[in-house]
């Protein structure tokens, strides 16, 4: 038995380059239960990060009592991380679950029947549509629902109501990944695969603390590091993360300066002639503009701006420029910082410069934060059109109208779909009066929380919240709908490397809770949304019918699911899309042929100016004649908009810890996870602490122009001048309101977003710190992660004890391989 809180990544199973990652089956069962006690195992995949680890849920007496990894799946080869092992089932099977709908009566939420709750929603919705029209309606969904649910919601919004105001909190986690892929390659779609870890000679992690955000993927890297020919590791992160500790080069850059560093790397590659000229001339456009953009950024210039050593920049560029196979992974350190899309595009550019796409080990992973973010992007409940269609392309709109049998005019395509922060702005101004929030918690996750709370509390705003628990957001709702959770409903979802998994229903939801899909279908029926022939717009009765409808919508598009079926997803490994007649078992990597989806009739976007976000006019895009070539897009570096000053001298960034997901609605209800990271903290460097007279565990007030938090300090290895706060800690378990000592990291953050991806800038704000109380013990921060104390301390090591025990079965089976691991039966239609 392993203590998987103390040992986040589990035992090593080393392997060499080109080898197969050995299988290790991880399993956790409810205290005292043995395998023989389990009634049945139900196939699923974990929804507590974007990795998409396949698993089987243990069921006993109609309840979820444990989990094990699926040995035969291409994603995880049997492994699970701490969140998957414990919170996946413990976070759902909890006494706090909502079991009945609620409506607000005389200021209080009171339980009611489904008929009453839905009746109230429909009455308000119909009244507003009649008096104000579709622009009065907004929908804010999640990165945690299933594909079928997003597709249903997208059809309701785009063909039932006809509102452009639909987005998800995918905007907060993955919008830049999608935007950067569209800008460079013409359409969304992850070029690389996790399997590239097995083949690479170097791994670059750009603002990606993989060790904590995708723990199982990091296990795969650790196993290569422990193998005979370890890949070089280059890490860009201002914190002393676990990734940084293994790095050959750690560029601990100043928050907000990513683009300057990327410019220097691109410049070095070009200066040293490490680019692949033949590939560039055959497969790309824009080399001269790129050269011009990076020209001022010598390693010395970037070193000055970013606060790193020029020699380290040169060495990182040399590794990129001279390694035969480089894998790049990008996440929130880039996506949630200034000039996010431009910085992420420079990573794409590095790969294009060296022609390193589509071959084993030459992977590019623009990662996702949440488990099902990819599906929201594909299905169009988030500010995209279904099937990666282009809102500026009339033919694409007509395709959708034909598919849904509606008038094309109802599909909002006169302007880009409204992004999340703009939806909240319209709600603030009163022009959106109906807001339906599903499976997410903006009252904790959005920037500048004092403002968000005011918007949610506006009496003029009719707020519907659909969730598992009475979250901070649900507490402000006019109607609360109890939803079924993971394991209580069936559906599919797709991870960050395009692998589609089926998650089957294992148990009944508690009380009257219903699957999100059923709730959306019920709303559609009650609203009488119909086709041009008067038939119901959404005639489906369950998830499999919704999936079959989605297959038709995706057919011929980059995310082609037409060859996948529920039957094909059962038994074998998850399947990477596209899956169709050309790729009957899916496709591991995209773009091995150097042909990109940039054709004007096919592309998802005509692109943007990366500095301003100005749309490139269709005529200009067509005149560039991309003909399947990729774009080398760039922008000039501009400093972050809020820089430290005398009043607020420190740089503030927010992020994650390995033990929690999002706003802890699930992980906070799992005993071993919440014990590992029970309460909020901030991390500061020893030098800054010394200057301010702060010791480990002291209570401080961290203030910005927006608000303040009061939490204990962990003296950590973070870059001096920086303050880090985990964003997970809201107030549902602390009386529901900020109270005397506010803890939510987003009390301080700035309302600002990237001009292209519209992803909020969470990783740059100016703050000041004051000590307001002495320590009562060490800060409640884990010692096993980036929040490890600096230097030698007497802070006790984070351990899980008996509640955190999980078994590891090594070499339980031969490692799965593509395509043999995929169920060859069924699927095509």
């Amino acid at each position, binding site marked *: 038995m392993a203590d998987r809180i103390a040992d986040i990544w589990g035992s090593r199973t080393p392997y060499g380059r080109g080898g197969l990652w050995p299988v290790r089956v991880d399993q956790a069962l409810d205290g005292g239960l043995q395998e023989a006690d389990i009634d049945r195992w139900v196939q699923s995949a974990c929804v507590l990060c974007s990795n998409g680890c396949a698993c089987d849920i243990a069921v006993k007496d109609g309840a979820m009592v444990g989990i094990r990894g699926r040995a035969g799946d291409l994603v995880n080869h049997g492994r699970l991380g701490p969140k998957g092992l414990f919170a996946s089932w413990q976070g759902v099977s909890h006494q706090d679950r909502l079991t009945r709908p609620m409506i607000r009566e005389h200021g209080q939420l009171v339980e009611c029947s489904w008929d009453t709750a839905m009746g109230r929603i429909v009455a308000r919705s119909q009244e507003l549509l009649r008096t104000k029209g579709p622009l009065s309606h907004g929908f804010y969904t999640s990165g945690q629902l299933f594909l079928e649910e997003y597709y249903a919601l997208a059809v309701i919004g785009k063909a039932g109501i006809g509102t452009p105001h639909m987005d998800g909190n995918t905007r907060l986690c993955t919008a830049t990944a999608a935007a950067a892929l569209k800008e460079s390659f013409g359409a969304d779609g992850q070029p690389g695969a996790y399997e590239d870890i097995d083949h690479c000679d170097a791994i670059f992690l750009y603002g990606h603390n993989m060790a904590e955000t995708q723990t199982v993927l990091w296990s795969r890297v650790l196993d290569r590091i422990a193998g005979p020919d370890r890949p070089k590791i280059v890490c860009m992160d201002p914190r002393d993360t676990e990734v940084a500790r293994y790095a050959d080069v750690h560029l601990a850059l100043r928050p907000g300066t990513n683009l300057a560093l990327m410019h220097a790397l691109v410049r070095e590659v070009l200066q040293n002639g490490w680019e692949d000229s033949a590939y560039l001339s055959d497969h790309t456009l824009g080399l001269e503009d790129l050269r011009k953009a990076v020209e001022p950024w010598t390693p010395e210039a970037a070193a000055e701006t970013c606060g790193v050593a020029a020699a380290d920049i040169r060495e990182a560029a040399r590794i990129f420029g001279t390694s035969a196979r480089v894998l790049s992974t990008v996440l929130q350190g880039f996506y949630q910082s200034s000039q996010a899309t431009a910085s992420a595009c420079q990573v794409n550019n590095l790969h294009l410069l060296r022609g390193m796409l589509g071959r084993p080990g030459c992977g590019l992973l623009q990662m996702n934060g949440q488990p099902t973010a990819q599906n929201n992007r594909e299905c169009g409940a988030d500010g995209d059109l279904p099937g990666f269609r282009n809102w500026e392309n009339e033919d694409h709109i007509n395709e959708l109208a034909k598919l849904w049998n509606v008038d094309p005019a109802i599909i909002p395509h006169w*302007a880009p779909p409204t992004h999340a922060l703009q939806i909240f702005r319209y709600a603030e101004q009163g022009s959106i009066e109906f807001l339906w929030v599903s499976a997410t918690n903006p009252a904790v996750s959005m920037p500048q929380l004092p403002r968000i709370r005011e918007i949610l509390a506006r009496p003029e705003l009719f707020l519907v919240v659909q969730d598992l628990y009475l979250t901070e957001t649900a507490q402000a709702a006019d109607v609360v709908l109890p939803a079924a959770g993971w394991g209580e409903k069936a559906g599919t979802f797709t991870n960050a490397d395009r692998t589609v998994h089926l998650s089957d229903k294992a148990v009944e939801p508690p009380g009257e809770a219903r699957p999100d899909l059923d709730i959306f279908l019920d709303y559609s029926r009650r609203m009488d949304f119909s086709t041009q022939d008067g038939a119901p717009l959404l005639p489906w009765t369950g998830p499999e019918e919704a999936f079959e409808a989605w297959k038709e919508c995706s057919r011929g598009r980059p995310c082609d699911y037409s060859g996948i079926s529920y039957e094909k997803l059962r038994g074998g490994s998850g399947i990477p899309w596209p899956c169709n007649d050309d790729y009957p078992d899916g496709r591991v990597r995209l773009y091995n042929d150097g042909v990109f989806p940039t054709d004007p009739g096919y592309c998802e976007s005509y692109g943007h100016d990366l500095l301003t976000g100005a749309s490139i006019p269709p005529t200009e895009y067509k005149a560039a004649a991309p003909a399947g070539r990729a774009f080398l897009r760039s922008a000039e570096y501009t400093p972050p908009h809020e820089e430290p000053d005398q009043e607020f001298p420190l740089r503030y960034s927010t992020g994650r810890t390995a033990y929690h997901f999002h706003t802890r609605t699930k992980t906070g209800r799992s005993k071993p996870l919440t014990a590992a990271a029970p309460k909020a903290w901030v991390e500061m460097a020893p030098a800054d602490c010394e200057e301010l007279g702060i010791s480990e565990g002291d209570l401080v007030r961290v203030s910005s122009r927006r608000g303040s938090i009061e939490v204990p300090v962990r003296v950590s290895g973070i870059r001096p001048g920086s303050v880090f706060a985990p964003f997970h800690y809201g107030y549902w378990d602390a009386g529901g309101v900020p109270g005397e000592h506010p803890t939510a990291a987003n009390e301080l953050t700035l309302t600002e977003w990237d001009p292209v991806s519209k992803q909020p800038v969470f990783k740059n704000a100016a703050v000041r710190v004051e000590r307001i109380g002495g320590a009562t013990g060490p800060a409640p921060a884990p010692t096993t992660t980036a929040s490890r104390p600096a230097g030698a301390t007497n802070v006790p090591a984070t351990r899980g004890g008996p509640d955190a025990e999980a078994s590891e079965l090594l070499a339980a089976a031969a490692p799965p391989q593509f395509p043999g691991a995929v169920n060859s039966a069924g699927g095509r239609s």
Partner: protein
Amino acid sequence: MNLKIYLGMLRRTEVTLAESFVEVAEGHGEEPDVYFLCLTLARQCLTHQEKLEAVVGRYGEEASDSEPERLHAAGLSQTRSGPVGLLRDLQDLYLLASFVDITWTMVKQAASALRDEELLAVVAECDSQTSTQLKWLQTRMKQAAPQALVAAGE
């Protein structure tokens, strides 16, 4: 040579446009994208003005020509408020930026006739930025117009 009339006009309107961008940024601070981008674009306009300075040294600059000003490109001295106010202010910026854009085009025509490589290089750099400013204004206005004109309160 009458080019100096246009160079003077261009320098003055770039400054007017810069001041107007700042005015709109400050008047619409509640719209963070408008606020930050207008400040960035104001700096661009001032850089254009500086780049023209070297050229003006060679051709001279005339504060006004004998033609009376019929259409005043006076800039925004004050912003409006609310969703329609934002739209109107962005539209005013669009008009002013269009004036700058077409003036660059005319200066380019003259520079081509003069085969003045230095001036052509300045035009190429600055006018492409002005053209992007126009595209951004149009993108932002197209986004704002339906909500402001259809859904916002009167």
